[in-house]
């Protein structure tokens, strides 16, 4: 969370405090920072449970692994992404976003960030048994997150021009639902693969 | 032939650099990929042999140590026998 605020406050310092410029890059900056800070939290999603063997015991119980994975993902979203969303008005202020832009940003964040946790957890499940998962995780996930980034920032941009942006929101929502349906099983499979 | 002479062929109507760069990069990349595949096949085949040799060494070592154990045990029993003989005498 602190990382998120720090990254965002670096930008005005780097490109200058001109409100117009900041407004132009604002949505992109917030989204990129959100993706990066979600990566930081993701890395530890299954690590402790994997290392102390809780994950093994979970797999050998009657609890459904996809359901457990979904709960884990929800926990990640609640602890490392929801605070960012709560903080977002402040950051919007920092970056001189106007009101319609902020509402669009909030909607894309609410719809889009669960996608980060869901897809991210698949890659985390795959790399949990590896020693140096961090860089690999970024390489695996960032290309996959590009469409989300594009649709989300374009929604905010449309909002800034007083245009409709329900199309972008609908696409993000569709991606979210698709991943909600598929990702828990992929995560469960990934965690089983990581057991040797 | 579309071009009048060799130099105009290489010049490509002023775009020679870009055209030849593309073709060069493409053929170089494919060549490198092929070479890598080819050479790694050769190294793999030699690796198989060295792996085989390594296993043979381990086997010999295991047999030797087993034989040494056996002979040590035999020696022990032999000395024990001698001792009992000595006592008899």
């Amino acid at each position, binding site marked *: 969370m602190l990382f998120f605020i720090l990254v965002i406050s670096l930008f005005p310092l780097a490109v200058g405090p001109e409100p117009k410029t900041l407004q132009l890059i604002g949505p992109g900056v917030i989204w990129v920072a959100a993706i990066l800070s979600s990566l930081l939290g993701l890395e530890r999603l299954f690590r402790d449970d994997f290392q*102390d063997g*809780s994950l093994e015991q979970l797999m050998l119980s009657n*609890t459904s692994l996809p359901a457990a994975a979904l709960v884990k993902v929800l926990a990640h979203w609640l602890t490392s992404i929801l605070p960012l969303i709560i903080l977002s008005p402040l950051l919007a202020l920092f970056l001189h976003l106007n009101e319609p832009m902020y509402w669009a940003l909030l909607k894309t964040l609410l719809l889009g960030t669960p996608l980060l946790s869901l897809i991210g957890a698949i890659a985390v499940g795959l790399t949990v048994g590896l020693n140096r998962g961090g860089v690999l995780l970024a390489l695996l996930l960032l290309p996959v997150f590009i469409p989300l980034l594009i649709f989300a920032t374009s929604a905010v941009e449309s909002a800034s021009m007083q245009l409709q942006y329900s199309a972008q929101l609908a696409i993000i929502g569709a991606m979210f639902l698709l991943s909600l349906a598929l990702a828990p099983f992929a995560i469960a499979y990934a965690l089983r693969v990581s057991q040797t | 032939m579309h071009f009048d002479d060799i130099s105009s062929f290489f010049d490509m109507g002023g775009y020679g650099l870009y055209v030849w760069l593309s073709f060069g990069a493409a053929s170089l990349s494919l060549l490198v990929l092929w070479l890598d595949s080819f050479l790694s096949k050769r190294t793999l085949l030699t690796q198989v042999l060295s792996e085989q040799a390594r296993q043979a060494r381990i086997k010999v070592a295991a047999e030797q140590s087993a034989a040494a154990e056996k002979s040590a045990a035999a020696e022990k029993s032999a000395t024990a026998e001698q001792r009992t003989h000595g006592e008899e005498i």
Partner: protein
Amino acid sequence: MAVISVINLSVVKTDRLLFEHLNFAVEQGGLLYVKGQNGAGKTSLLRVLAGLVNADSGKVYFSQQNIKDCRDDYHQHLVYFGHKLGINLTLSAVENLQYWCKQHQVVISVDRIFNTLAQLNLVGLEDIPVANLSAGQQRRVALARFWFKQNAKLWILDEPFTALDNQGIELISKQITQFLIGGGAVVITSHQALRLDYPTDELTLEYRI
């Protein structure tokens, strides 16, 4: 009836063949002691038996059913104790055990948990974070599971005696014997000789290169 049986099992790990064409069965009340050098594949065998890892070829049956087809039923009747304890260090012993019991759908009162921990010589350590306990004490917390899962038919135990003192070993051995007498089946590995007063089958895995 065989509780667990294995047909033509081979396991490959990191491109190394650990064993192949392995066949055995453990009956009700049967104790199988898996022996072998370090790296012979004891742990891998146990993990395959538990269904954590897939075998390269061959099948594992739990009461005549392939464990892949009856995963839930199998895990309902299984206690697996591995190298990793499955204990979260930030939680207390009681919390850990409650969590485990919930996962495994074992209904148990907090009093029973306290009682069992007392039996294991952990009085006064029940509700502090497990991170503050010694290695042996942490193991005892994990081993308390042996007292809880009443409907278990099979225990798969990977080095349960490591880091335990004599008194602990005796306690666990007694619990294992009791389980066996009650008709349970046990597959166990151990570097210490088993101090169980019970007929034992042995399976020795050769170390392969």
